[in-house]
């Protein structure tokens, strides 16, 4: 069966520091991968998605970037975090339109 791993679970970072969140999927090959952000009082917002290695589509202009160095690995990065980057970050993969989410990373930028 397919599983998705996301880490860390929580992260507290100072403004201006770099960020790297990692997500890996097991049990499937060539999955579509996604990064969503969930801010307090707002719906999940799609940030990036990838349909293959090295293929990244950005949905929202922002301070973040994504990379897919391997088939089942998806990384969310920032060179300098802003206060507005705080939120709950979720990685997901899809199977026939259904999204399956990881456990999320709660990021607090102080």
């Amino acid at each position: 069966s397919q599983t998705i791993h996301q880490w860390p679970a929580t992260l507290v970072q100072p403004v201006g520091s770099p960020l790297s969140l990692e997500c890996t999927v097991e049990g499937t090959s060539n999955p579509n991968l996604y990064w969503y952000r969930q801010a307090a009082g707002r719906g999940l917002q799609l940030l990036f998605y990838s349909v293959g290695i090295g293929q990244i589509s950005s949905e929202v202009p922002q301070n973040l970037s994504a990379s897919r160095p391997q088939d089942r690995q998806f990384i969310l990065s920032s060179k300098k975090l802003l206060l507005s980057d705080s939120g709950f970050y979720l990685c997901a993969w899809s199977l026939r339109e259904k999204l399956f989410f990881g456990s999320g990373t709660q990021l607090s930028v102080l």
Partner: protein
Amino acid sequence: EDQVTQSPEALRLQEGESSSLNCSYTVSGLRGLFWYRQDPGKGPEFLFTLYSAGEEKEKERLKATLTKKESFLHITAPKPEDSATYLCAVQEGNTGTASKLTFGTGTRLQVTL
């Protein structure tokens, strides 16, 4: 632009008190409407996909229905373990292979004894 509005924002029920959650949507060509359950501090868990008006899906105490403008999640005789945030999402057509879902802000359900 796709829009998804969920109501109410929060709902408190007593155990056994049935109710419905609403999801109204605006989308150019619905490809699918999705319901998810999210527990605090966790990722959303997939519940249902509905594709066309008139379709219904059931799972235990939950039943999802779909019309051309909205979807309902009916909860029959809820139990405290049904307490969670329920999210609705839509996917419009012409998105290729990617599942680019637009989510509502959710309904926080609390079921008390």
